[in-house]
């Protein structure tokens, strides 16, 4: 466990620290250690750079692209034009700049990916923590069955059904992805919790009469958190791919602009039959880049937090 690594000699130099200060010091040190290992992983750093780049673009997209530029009724460019002066990636069927669409789309794609993951990981971690903490009891079995069911259902079929029920809005897409992705996180968190709860200081806290809730939040959670985090990063990749699949099947929000929606619009507009490669290929490449980046970072974090899964290559 990362948090169980010794503090080293430095702590002996400083005066006595309060328990809380000790805890934070330990966390900061382990974060530093984590970071230096992460930094040495070439793929992970490349991934991080890519993510920062896309993240900045997404963050500043309102400054980079005006609302009018992606309004279908205002678009003034020549429709379906290959890259020309003023339109470095060409235009779509409405005459909007594909580059502008990609920039605006980055926001939606990333937000959907991150929010859905947040939801999935929140649900999954909660279920996993409770399930693992009460491992073997009825609660665990009930939650386990629930988790199993969500793992068993083919996610796309469930997603289709839910999307049909809830309707094609962005919020519902996020909901659908969250609901269909939490189970795997739950499984992993449960496994981790099972091993953490047998640690000596957890037993000690219990013996001292701490409530279950406080044990979970103050002792178990910090230990399990790194694994949750690594899992979350990997889940973002899956969430982005899921959103793309839903969009391609026509289940996304057609009034929004995400990379998946751009691909769907391009295909429906006959982009390939007519040879509009500039419309169809770039969004796919963006998705690949971002998904790869999240995956590489996630792997690196996983290796760090679970030494048994060393996978450097």
């Amino acid at each position: 466990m990362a948090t169980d690594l010794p503090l080293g000699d430095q702590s002996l130099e400083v005066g006595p620290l309060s328990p809380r200060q000790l805890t934070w010091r330990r966390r900061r040190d382990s974060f530093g250690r984590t970071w230096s290992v992460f930094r040495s992983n070439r793929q992970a750093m490349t991934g991080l750079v890519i993510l920062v780049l896309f993240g900045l673009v997404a963050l500043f997209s309102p400054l980079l692209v005006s609302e009018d530029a992606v309004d279908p009724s205002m678009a003034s460019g020549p429709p379906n034009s290959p890259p020309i002066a003023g339109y470095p990636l060409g235009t779509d069927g409405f005459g909007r700049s594909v580059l502008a669409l990609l920039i605006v789309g980055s926001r939606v794609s990333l937000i959907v990916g991150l929010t859905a993951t947040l939801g999935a990981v929140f649900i999954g971690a909660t279920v996993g923590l409770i399930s693992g903490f009460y491992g073997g009891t009825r609660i665990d079995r009930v939650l386990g069955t629930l988790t199993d069911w969500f793992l068993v259902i083919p996610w796309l079929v469930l997603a289709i059904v839910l999307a049909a029920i809830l309707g094609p809005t962005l919020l519902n897409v996020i909901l659908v992805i969250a609901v269909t992705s939490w189970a795997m996180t739950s499984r992993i968190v449960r496994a981790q919790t099972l091993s953490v709860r047998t640690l000596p200081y957890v037993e000690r806290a219990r013996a001292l009469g701490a409530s279950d809730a406080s044990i979970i939040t103050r002792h178990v959670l910090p230990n399990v958190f790194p694994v949750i985090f690594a899992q979350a990063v990997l889940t973002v990749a899956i969430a982005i791919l899921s959103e793309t699949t839903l969009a391609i099947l026509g289940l996304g929000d057609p009034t929004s602009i995400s990379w998946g929606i751009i691909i769907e619009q391009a295909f429906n507009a006959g982009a390939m039959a007519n040879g509009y490669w500039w419309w169809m290929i770039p969004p796919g490449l963006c998705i690949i880049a971002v998904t790869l980046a999240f995956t590489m970072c996630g792997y690196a974090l996983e290796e760090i937090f679970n030494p048994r899964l060393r996978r450097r290559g």
Partner: protein
Amino acid sequence: MRLRYIARKCGWALLTLLFVLSANFFLFRIMPGDPIGLLARSTRLSPEALAQQIHLYGLDQPLPAQYLTYLKQTLSGNLGVSIISGTEVAETLASRMWPTVLLVGLGTLIAAVVGVVAGIKGGWTRGSGFDRGSLYSSLLLYATPEGWLGMLLLIVFAGTLGWFPAGGYASNSGAGAASFGDVARHLFLPVLTLSLGYVGSFVIVMRSSMIDVKEEQYITTARAKGLSDGTIRSQHAVPNAFLPSFTLIVLSVGFILGGAIVVETVFSWPGLGLLTYQAIQDQDYPVLQAVFLISSGAVVVANLIADIAYGYLDPRVEEV
């Protein structure tokens, strides 16, 4: 006793199936929109005819009664009647099952075989050119959206180059079943897309398994004993590394079924996936319900097979 393990797993599977059945029922009952009403608008049904249709589909019964009827009917093989076409759903499913089985079966097999072989080789020769190449390709494929990939392949090979047909199951008509060659031509691109979509995951999983196993004590022992590299790999490493990968591969059937929906839609492949997509468009709930049931059932069965296989192959299972 191993038998107890198997029995327990079977019982679990049955319970899950029941859960699936029930959830299936309730999920579809809360769908908004009224398919019967929509038919009324487009076909100008008279109020009496409308009432007749509602009664026919049992939509005027109280919910618990509908649930029991549903259970009884489903377990006896009656999956209802399509609201749109009036044909029996079970029949429609049966006629569309084979193309999907063909596509998913072949696609999974190829992805699994290529993935396992490449993963073994890559994991064993970690850091080599081959390993790097296959790992990066696998990661790239893993990150590629499957629908997009399918569209690209369709356009390149069927459109620009014209090597393959642009979709469908077969080009001939009348004269009995399609010829093997004809179907193979139509099958190539969809299977390629499906395999490419999943081979990446399999390579990565198998590779990491091999890497873990390579560090094991017994491998070092085998080397010390002077056994050849190839022998160690095939007789000591692979059998141990293969098991968790096998389990994961079987489990991924569920995801592959989902992938089949996208691939079938892009290539007009007339299987269950395309049926699902069309049923969504038409709001044909009996069909959707049945597909949902079948795919969940398939995954439950796949899980069961994986668990049982695990039980036989992993000697530690007796303790579980």
